[in-house]
Each structure stands twice: as C-alpha cells, then as structure tokens.
C-alpha cells in the first residue's frame, strides 16, 4: 500500500512533465513517421516498417531512464527524500516505487508506437502483442540505468549522462539506424558486447516470428538488467545512508 502510494506519485510526476511526453512519446513517433517517409522515397531495407518499429520502440525506452533518473536525482537534490526517509517507507518501498511505474509507461509507449506503425502499414499479426510484451525485460534494463544514474548523479549530470550519452549509445550501438555489419571490426564487437543491439534484435526476431532467435538476445538483455539492477539498488541504498 505504502509502495503503491509512492509509485503513484512517481507516475504522476513523470507523466505531468510536458517535456517527458514530448521526448518519450513525440520523438519516437516523429522518427517513425520521418524514416518511413524517407523509406518511401529511397527504399532502404533497414527502414522498412517491420525493421524500424522494433528499433524505435527500444530507442524510446532510453527516455524512460532519463525520466526516472531525473526524478530521483531531483528528489535527492531537495529535502523531499529526507522527509520521506523519516516516514515508515522502507528501502524496498522506495526502490519499487521509483522503478515499477516505469514499466507500464514503457509498455504504453510501445503500444502507441506499434499503433502508429500499423497506421504506417505494419502488417497486423499476433507477434505485435509478443513484441510489446518483449519490451518488459528491456524496460527493466533501462529502469536499472535510471535508478543507477539517479542514485549517483545530480539532476544536471543526469541530463548529460542519460539524456545525451545513453540515448546516443542506444542509437549508435543498437543497429537501429545503420547496419553494424557495414562498420564491422571493433565497433561491431563493442556493440555486441553491450545490450542495446541485442534488445533491438530480440524485438525484431519476435516481430518476425523467429522465436528460436530470441533466447540468446534476451539472455544478454536480462544479464545486463540483473547486474545493473543489483548495482542500482546498492548505490541507491548507499545514497540513502548518506542522506
């Protein structure tokens, strides 16, 4: 009950920020429409709607890290958290209260992206539902990034690290905007050592119904998510002690 009260507050703070809505929802939709228009004029297989949509939905999740990290860092910067630390809220209430609301928001973002993609002629199949559900482990990964950054950085630093670095990493090292095979070499090795490209390939495989290809990618994503979540919880508890 206490955790749900706190989680409700997290969701309200995130959803009421017009910038969050603009970037979290507007930006992925703009990308989807723009790149589909480019594809219509200059056909590029990578920008075909069935390839593009999974990438854009994953890319959109990077903003979830930004929203969550900004809120946590801002709370840390004010006395609100100090006040709440003197209430019966437990560390678990804080961690779940900050992280759980992000998952339905992330899923809602995915649903909106897929609805837009259907309008842009994505064939309607049951795999769309599975692809949206596949966003859950990926959103865990981005939630962990958010909790980690929010626990160790100030709100200004969060803008730089989550807003610029993470979104760029998610863009460049994910194979959404260009084929990693074209670059190859160390760049490709680094990309495949990180979780972003696996998240995108997992979503592409689900949407295409290639379910046998999903497992190795989901394993990468979940391993990163678990390690990052453990680190995030550790750093959150540390900053709680410091407060």
């Amino acid at each position, binding site marked *: 009950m206490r955790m749900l009260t706190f989680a409700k*507050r997290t969701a309200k*703070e995130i959803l009421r920020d017009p910038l969050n809505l603009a970037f979290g929802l507007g930006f992925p939709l703009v990308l989807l429409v723009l790149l589909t228009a480019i594809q219509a004029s200059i056909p590029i297989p990578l920008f075909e709607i069935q390839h593009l949509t999974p990438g854009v939905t994953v890319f959109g999740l990077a903003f979830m890290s930004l929203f969550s990290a900004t809120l946590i860092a801002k709370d840390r910067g004010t*006395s*609100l958290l100090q*006040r709440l630390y003197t*209430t019966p*809220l437990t560390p678990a209430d804080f961690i779940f209260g900050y992280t759980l609301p992000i998952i339905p928001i992330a899923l809602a973002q995915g649903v909106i992206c897929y609805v837009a993609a259907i309008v842009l002629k994505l064939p309607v199949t049951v795999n769309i539902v599975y692809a949206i559900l596949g966003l859950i482990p990926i959103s865990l990964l981005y939630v962990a990034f958010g909790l980690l950054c929010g626990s160790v950085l100030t709100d200004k630093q969060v803008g730089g690290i989550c807003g610029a670095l993470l979104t760029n990493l998610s863009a460049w090292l994910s194979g959404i905007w260009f084929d990693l095979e074209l670059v190859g070499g160390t760049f490709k090795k680094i990309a495949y050592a990180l979780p972003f490209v696996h998240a995108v390939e997992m979503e592409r495989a689900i949407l295409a119904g290639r379910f046998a290809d999903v497992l190795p990618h989901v394993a990468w994503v979940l391993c990163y998510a678990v390690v990052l979540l453990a680190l995030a919880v550790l750093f959150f508890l540390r900053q709680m002690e410091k407060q």
Partner: protein
Amino acid sequence: MDAIRMERLTKHYKDVVAVGNLSLCVHKGELLSLLGVNGAGKTTTIKMLSCLTRPTAGDAFVNGKSIVTDTAAVKSCIAVSPQDTAIAPGLSVRENLELICGIYGFAKEKQTEKIDELVALLGLKSVLTKKAGKLSGGIQRRLSIAMALISEPEILFLDEPTLGLDVLVRSDLWDIIRSLKGKITIILTTHYMEEAEALSDRIAIMKDGKLVICDTAAKIKERAETDNFEQAFVRIVKGVAE
C-alpha cells in the same frame, strides 16, 4: 514523562565532532528550540533523532523507543519539516497531503478529515488544486509543515521553519506553531533569536556540538545579565569560547 531523552548522543564525521555527548530531555507537549551558530550541531541532532543519521555513540529515546535499535517505532510517531521546503512539485497541494496520508496508511474518511483540518489550519484552501511547484515560497513552506502535521505526529521536528520568509508569512507561521503548543512535542531549530524567545518553553544553546545551556528564555537572560535575548545568546556563546 519525557518525549525525548538523549543520552550522551554523539556524531562524528571523520575527525569532526558534529555532536558530542549530548544529554538532554524534552518533556511531552513542550516546545524546545535548539539555537546555535552555523555548525553548532542543531541539524545533526535533529537528523539523529529522526533516524536520518545513526549516532556514532550514545542513544536517544523517542517516546521510549531507541533511535538506534527501534527506528521503525520512532518513525511512526515523529514527523520532520526539513530546512528546505520538502514537497513534491509536480503534485497539487491536495495530492501532496494525500501522498503522506497514503504512506501512513490512512483510510479514505480519515484522509479527507485530516486534509480538511490541515487545509483550514494552514490556510491552504484557495490553492488546494494548484501544483505545489508553482506556489510562492511562503505557501510552499505552509504545505511542507502541513505534510509534517498530517501524519498526527506526537513529536514534530521543525528545522528552521521560517528561514527566508517575509515578516508577514513568518508571523502567520508563528501563530500556527503557537496553536500546536501543548498538543504535540516540538523541537525547533532557528537562527532567529526573537523566534526562539517568542515560541519556546525552553531553549537549548549549542556550540561546537556541545550543549552550553538549556533553560527558559528568561533564565538564560538572567544568567547572561541582560534583558535582550540576542545579547544573552552572544554573551553565552562567546563566554564559552573564551
């Protein structure tokens, strides 16, 4: 009965003694002000008593519960209004109050009743649906105090509640604090001498983490041989320094 009993309460930050061997009792229903220059240890004392910081040594008992071994019980009977305004800026005034009610597990009827009561007491009716982050500093401070009071605390910590507020808002807050006297135990820290003198049953003056004196304003002035409380404070603090 004592609402708070501090027993050789000590907090070190590396080599710095923020609070050293503080032993002090606060009676039930009393308003005790903690006074001191910057770095005297007032805020650290409040942080320890509200379980935000663990003492390095010693202990304190809030309503008979240890701040070291029984933090959950302590947290259930206290509330803190921190130095800075502590509100959720994206929520309305009502939602901020509902947030605290939810954290304390109030039923719907009790929540409505408490919100109505606090809104009337702190004059927040006209801004109830407004976003807290858009309100003036004075109204935000009132909301911050309302959020502390809504959990029906037996002990309330007010850390510099009127800092940075204009004279009229400060006067309003003094009236609110006066209206609470006797009903709950209040520990107030302040830099304003006249505030401590006007509101407190007793005043504890701290310097370098140590308690210098704890008595009524009248007795403190008597001891410092002056009619002016500010002068008394300066004499006592300097006297100890010499």
